[in-house]
C-alpha cells in the first residue's frame, strides 16, 4: 500500500530523517513511535508532500507520489490528520466533512451558480456521505454547530471524520490522542478500530503507548531520524534497550 524508500530530509544542518525505509501493507494497522523530535511528524509531512525532500522515494499502491502535491496525494487515497487538529473554523461541523468528500468537487463554477437537478442530487449524496463519517466518530448530533465551538476532543474526532470523508485507502493519524482525557481516548480507540474494519490501512503516530500496543499489528520505532526497530507490539515491549532509552525506566507505562 505505502512504501517509503530510503528517505532523508534535512533542515539546514539538522538531519530530521536519515535513510528511513518502511512499508505499510493493505488493511494493516501500523504504529509509529519514538521520543519527541524523532522525526515522526516530519515523516508524515514527507509522505504527503508538505515538506520537500530530495533523497529517497515514496510509493502509494506501487505509484511514485514523491513529486505530487498534497491534494493529489489525498485524491489518490492517502490522507493524514494533524497533531494540532486544524479544523475549518469558518465552516460548520457537517461542512467540514462535506468539503472533503470527493464528489463535492463535481460542483464547480457553473453548477455552483446554477443549481441543476443533477447538482442537487450530487449535493444530497455528498451530504449523506459526510453525515456517515460524522456518525462513525459520534458527532452527528453536532453537525450544524460551528467547528470552532466544539471541545478539543470533538475537534480531534472531526479531524478524523474529515480525513475519512476523502474516502482513503490509507489513513495517517498524527498523535490522535494527545490532549484527550481517558474517556475521549477510549472513544478514539474504538473509532480507529471501526475505521480499520472498513479495510482502510492505518499508520498512526502515538504517544499513548498503552493504546498503541493494543491497536497496532506492527510497530516502527524512530529515533533521531533513524528507524531503530520494527516488530510486533510484543517484540517492541520486550526490547529493553528501546524502552529504557526512549521511554524511561518505568515499565508501568507499557502495561
Amino acid at each position, binding site marked *: 500500500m505505502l512504501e517509503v524508500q530510503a528517505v532523508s530530509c534535512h533542515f539546514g544542518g539538522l538531519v530530521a530523517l536519515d535513510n528511513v525505509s518502511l512499508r505499510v501493507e493493505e488493511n494493516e494497522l501500523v504504529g509509529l513511535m519514538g521520543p519527541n523530535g524523532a522525526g515522526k511528524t516530519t515523516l508524515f509531512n514527507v509522505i*504527503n508532500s*508538505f515538506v520537500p525532500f530530495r533523497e529517497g522515494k515514496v510509493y502509494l499502491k506501487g505509484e511514485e507520489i514523491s513529486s505530487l*502535491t*498534497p*491534494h493529489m496525494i*489525498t*485524491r489518490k487515497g492517502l*490522507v*493524514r490528520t*494533524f497533531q494540532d487538529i*486544524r*479544523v*475549518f*473554523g*469558518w*465552516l460548520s461541523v457537517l*461542512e*467540514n466533512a*462535506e*468539503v*472533503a468528500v*470527493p464528489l*463535492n*468537487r463535481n*460542483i*464547480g*463554477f457553473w*453548477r*455552483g*451558480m*446554477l*443549481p441543476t437537478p443533477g447538482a442537487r442530487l450530487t*449535493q444530497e449524496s*455528498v451530504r449523506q456521505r459526510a453525515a456517515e463519517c460524522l456518525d462513525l466518530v459520534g458527532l452527528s448530533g453536532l453537525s450544524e454547530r460551528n467547528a470552532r465551538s466544539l471541545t478539543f476532543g470533538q475537534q480531534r474526532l472531526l479531524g478524523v471524520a*474529515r*480525513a475519512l*470523508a*476523502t474516502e482513503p485507502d490509507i489513513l495517517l493519524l498524527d498523535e490522535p490522542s494527545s490532549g484527550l482525557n481517558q474517556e475521549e481516548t477510549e472513544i478514539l480507540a474504538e473509532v480507529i478500530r471501526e475505521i480499520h474494519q472498513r479495510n482502510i490501512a492505518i499508520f498512526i503516530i502515538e504517544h499513548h503507548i498503552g493504546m498503541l500496543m493494543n491497536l497496532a499489528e506492527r510497530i516502527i520505532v524512530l529515533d533521531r531520524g533513524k528507524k531503530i526497530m520494527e516488530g510486533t507490539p510484543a517484540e517492541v515491549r520486550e526490547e529493553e534497550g528501546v524502552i529504557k532509552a526512549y521511554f524511561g525506566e518505568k515499565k508501568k507505562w507499557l502495561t
Partner: protein
Amino acid sequence: MRGAFLLKWIVLTAAVILCPIILEYGFSYSLEPALQAGFFIILSVSLALVVGLTGQISWGHAAFFGIGAYGAAILATRGNLPVVLAIPAGTLVGLAAGFLIGYPVLRLKSYYLALATLVIGIAVQEFFKAADFLTGGEIGLYDLPDIKLGSFELSSAFSHYYVVWMFALIIVFFCDRLSKSFLGKRLRAIHSDEGAAESAGIDVPRMKLGIFTFSAAIAAFAGTLFAHCSYGTIAPGEFGVVLSIKIITMVVIGGMFSVYGAAMGAVIIALLPEMIRRLGDLAHMDLTQITHLQDIAFGVILVIFVIFAPQGLIGKMRMSRTNA
C-alpha cells in the same frame, strides 16, 4: 423559505425600479449617487468572493475596474468596435489581467499579498497616466459612446441606472448562489486553513487563482459599464488606491462572508459622501474641506467596524436575531 426568498427579490427589484422615478419626480434629486451605488455593488460583491470568502486580501481591486474601463473604451474609440462588443471584450481583458496578475501574486500570503496587490494597483494606475497614446494620459478618455441596441441609444441617466442596476442584481444573485454552493464552502475551507484544505483534497492554488480571475473579470465588467454606461469619461484618478480602500471598506462593513452584506456595504459607502456633503453644507464648509472629511470618514468607519463589528452588519443582525 423559498417563498420568503422570492418575496425578498421581488421587493428588492421593485425598489430598484422605483428608486430613480421617486428621486427624479418626487425630489428632483440627482441620480448620480444611485448610479454609483450600482457600480459599487458590483465591485464590492466581486471582491467579497476573494477577500471575504477565500481570505485572500487584495488592495488592488480598483485596477481591474480600470483595466475593464480602459480596455473597452480603447477598443470602442481607437478600435472602432461597437460598444456591445467592446463590453465583453473589455471584460475578457480584465479576466486575462486577473489571471496573469493572480498567478504569481497568489503564492504570497497575508501582508506580502497585501503589499503586492497594493503595488500592482498603483502600477496599473501609473500606466494609465503614462501611456498617453493609448489612455489619454492624466486627462483620460472622454466622449465615449453609449450602448446602442439597434437604433436605440441608451444615453439617458435613467437608462444608465437601469442597465447598471440590472447587472448588479444579476451579479448579486449568482455570486450569492456561488458563495453558498460547495465551491463556496471549499473556498471558506481555504480561508480557514490552506494546508488542511490541501490535505482534504482541495486544489488550493487552482481554486484561489480561479476565484481571483473571476472576481477580476466582474470588476472589469463593471469598468466597461463605467466607460460606456455612465458619463462617458474615464480618467486615471478614478482607479486608484482610494477606490480600492473604499471597496474593502464595503466588504468589511457588510460582513466578510455575505454577498448581500457586501452589497449593503456598497450602498452605504455610495450614499455616505452625499450625507457628509449635506452635513458640510450645514457647517458652511468649502468643497475641499468636505472632500477631506469624506476621506476621513471612510477610514474612521473602516476602523470602527474592524474593532467593534468584525463580523459586519449582516453578522451583527444574525447575532441579534439568535439572541432574541
